[in-house]
């Protein structure tokens, strides 16, 4: 494993992108590594693409943002366009190849995912360019392109709200820099109260994580690269 791994995650406002980044980094820190997470923010219109930058390293980390990512996760069509700039020939590019997940508007939060409208100045950066179709735009220069049907699986097998846990699981598997256990610990400390109140939630989230690991496993295996 490289000493420093750089991950860019992008998606729609409601997809829980920031939670993925945050938990990843927190787990890295938990393991005694240097970890740095920074969201993109600005004066924003809702519905802009939300971007999270995560770096985990054995050593001190340089600038909080970077130009090229080791792993890019794109969770919507617009996210694909927005993340092209971070892709190099060494990038592992992960995208959701099921339909784009509609975030649900409801009052009770199941996973960490929610319809999280944020105030304008805390909003992730928007993309003003018009996006055509994700397929057309998928990066041609990446080292590997991996499609994960996270949305479909979440809806079919688990619950739409844990979509981002699947993604988190997949990312952890791909990055291989933190232990799944630590992720679970981090989740536990974030959602501990909710988990105690409703133990089903814990099961649901942890299953989703596991599902993500498996999906990534399969994907990597299918591409015959592991």
């Amino acid at each position, binding site marked *: 494993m490289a000493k420093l791994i750089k991950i860019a995650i992008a998606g729609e406002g409601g997809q829980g992108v920031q939670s993925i980044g945050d938990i990843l980094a927190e787990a890295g820190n938990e393991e005694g590594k240097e970890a740095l997470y920074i969201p993109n923010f600005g*004066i*924003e*219109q*809702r519905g802009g693409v939300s971007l999270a930058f995560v770096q985990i390293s054995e050593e001190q980390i340089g600038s909080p943002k970077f130009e090229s990512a080791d792993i890019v996760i794109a969770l919507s069509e617009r996210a694909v366009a927005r993340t092209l700039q971070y892709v190099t020939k060494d990038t592992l590019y992960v995208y959701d190849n099921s339909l784009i997940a509609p975030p649900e508007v409801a009052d009770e939060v199941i996973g960490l995912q929610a319809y999280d*409208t*944020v*105030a*304008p*100045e805390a909003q992730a950066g928007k993309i003003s360019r018009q996006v055509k179709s994700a397929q057309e735009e998928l990066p041609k220069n990446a080292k590997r392109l991996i499609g994960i049907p996270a949305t479909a699986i979440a809806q079919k097998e688990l619950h739409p709200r844990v979509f981002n846990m699947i993604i988190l699981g997949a990312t952890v598997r791909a990055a291989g820099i933190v232990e799944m256990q630590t992720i679970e610990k981090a989740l536990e400390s974030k959602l501990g109260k909710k988990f105690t109140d409703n133990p089903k939630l814990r099961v649901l989230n942890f299953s989703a994580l596991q599902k993500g690991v498996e999906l990534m496993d399969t994907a990597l295996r299918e591409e015959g690269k592991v």
Partner: protein
Amino acid sequence: MVERLAMPKSWRLDSKPHKFCPGCGHGMVLKVLGEVIDELAIQEKLIFGVDIGCSLLAWDFFDVDTVQTHHGRTNPVMVGIKRARPELLCIAYMGDGGAYAIGSQHLVNVAFRNEKIMAIVVNNCNYGMTGGQMSPTTLPGQKTETSPYGRDAKETGSPTLGPEMVAAIASPGAYVARGSVTNLKQLKKFMKKAVENQLAGNGFSFLEVISCCPTNWRTNAKQTWAFMEEEMGRYFKTGELLTAEKDEGHS
């Protein structure tokens, strides 16, 4: 495909859907304003000034010349334009923070001087743009990012009553009212009268609007309406506080 649906003609299509959050009161206020612009046919001579605050998201909202200014400084910029070009109509559009906190010296002095501009204050009981801090109009007990245990009126005072203050210091010719997005017909009536007051050159026109910020309030639609109607309604009474005495003989 359709062009405007229910949008006023003065709304600029290119910037729609607009940049406000789902369920934001700013959208309702600006719809009412758009209708008034259309009905009074003032699009050509209107200068719209937006403050820093969520109002800045309206910087390209209308097909109307628009200046986005600094936080709290929209009143003086509009005063400057109006005095330079009295034939223009100037509307300063701002939040409760911009109007009653950082820009309050401008507001009270604009009122003292009876400047012939119009000011709209969208009162959402918090600093929306910056993520929901306490504002001068935050209700007692209301939780915000800087009053996490609820606003303590003893320590931080009672909610600012803007129109009441302006009415207390305004000169003859001024128009002062408070409307609410919970009563859009009344709001439109006030908005129209306020604009007409400037058209007539009577004096300062001031309109506060009870509005909502579901994002920072963390309310769903039902709670949003309830907070405005009940909680805010208790403190902030709608109605006209001052109307120009002299005849409004405009076109």
